[in-house]
């Protein structure tokens, strides 16, 4: 009985000592045969909404807006992407009170710059969009600009004037991130730099806010925008991703 115990101990010792050798031999062999690892990646349609615009609609009385976004994965790094939204915004100052209202559509591509670890699918991306908006601008009130304070109140018109059927086209550069927080559920933020290509200017007025483009600036054709979105990936198929094993 005692002898048996000893022999088991010795055998297991030998096994323990030999095992690392064999496993080392196996690793070397595998390296020679195959230097990549294959993982599965999900391809499909990712649909989401902009929670930033939704939150602002509740907080800001002068704003209501919503945007749905979607992207479709084409290759390892390239995505077809687009947004569809509607916005209503009021701009008020001492001399003007203007409501801009309309909807917009943006389409383009996203390119993932982030090299994921194994099968993870997070994105740090840059992309381009072309945006189109149709909207109207309503001049609710305006007061004549005057530097002379002799008369008590300058002339104010409260007779609303509406400029309908306006449209604008712009191009966008986007940078952003999308992180998978739960399986298939992504949260992301992005920033957009926009350049106006064409717009319909109302006669004797100008577009102060273009839905989708955000506010305009006197100094030029550029604009900025931000997005905070939550999106859900609907996987359609899976594709192999080969990862090179480095020494």
């Amino acid at each position, binding site marked *: 009985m005692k002898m048996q115990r000893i022999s088991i101990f010795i055998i297991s010792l030998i096994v323990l000592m030999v095992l690392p050798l064999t496993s080392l031999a196996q690793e070397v062999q595998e390296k020679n045969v195959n230097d990549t690892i294959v993982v599965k990646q999900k391809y499909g349609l990712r649909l989401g909404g902009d929670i930033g615009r939704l939150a602002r609609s509740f907080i800001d009385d002068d704003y209501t807006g919503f945007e749905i976004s979607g992207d479709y994965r084409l290759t390892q790094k390239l995505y077809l992407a687009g947004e569809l939204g509607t916005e209503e915004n009021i*701009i008020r*100052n*001492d*001399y*003007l009170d203007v409501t801009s209202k309309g909807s917009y559509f943006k389409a383009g591509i996203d390119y993932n710059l982030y090299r994921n670890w194994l099968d993870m699918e997070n994105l740090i991306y840059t992309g381009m969009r072309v945006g189109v908006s149709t909207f109207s601008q309503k001049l609710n009130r*305006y*007061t*004549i*600009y*005057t530097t*002379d304070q*002799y*008369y008590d109140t*300058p*002339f104010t*018109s409260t007779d609303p004037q509406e400029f309908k059927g306006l449209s604008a086209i712009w191009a966008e550069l986007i940078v952003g991130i999308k992180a998978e927080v739960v399986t298939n559920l992504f949260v992301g933020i992005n920033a957009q730099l926009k350049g106006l290509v064409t717009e319909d200017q109302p006669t*004797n*007025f*100008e577009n*102060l806010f273009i839905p989708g483009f955000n506010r*305009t600036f*006197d100094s030029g054709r550029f604009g900025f925008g931000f997005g905070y979105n939550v999106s859900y990936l609907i996987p359609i198929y899976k594709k192999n991703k080969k990862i090179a094993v480095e020494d």
Partner: protein
Amino acid sequence: MDVTAENNPNYIVNDKTIDSIVLPLRVDALDIMNTSRFVLTKDRDYDLDDDPNTASNADIIEVNYTPELIYVSRACGYKSVFNNLSANRETDPNNWIINIEVIKDTINNENAAHINIYH
């Protein structure tokens, strides 16, 4: 000389000797004829005594114009230019203004003179 708008207690010019005056034009309605009336009073400073020879003399001028709004920018909104400018002096028994004459009938800046008043 003193200048006020008619029925307005505030002075545009108060007891000054000047060769030009800047009159603020009221905008009451757009695209139709608007009128501003001004009271130009001469020798108001001699009114301290009761001597009728040195009494002040007030003449009323009437300026008519059609305001037109021009969009400037998002910060300033609209400014007004004045078209179809005309001016006349109200005749009273003792006018010190001899004649009034419009040189330019469109006002789109505040730098040049648009009306000549002769006295």
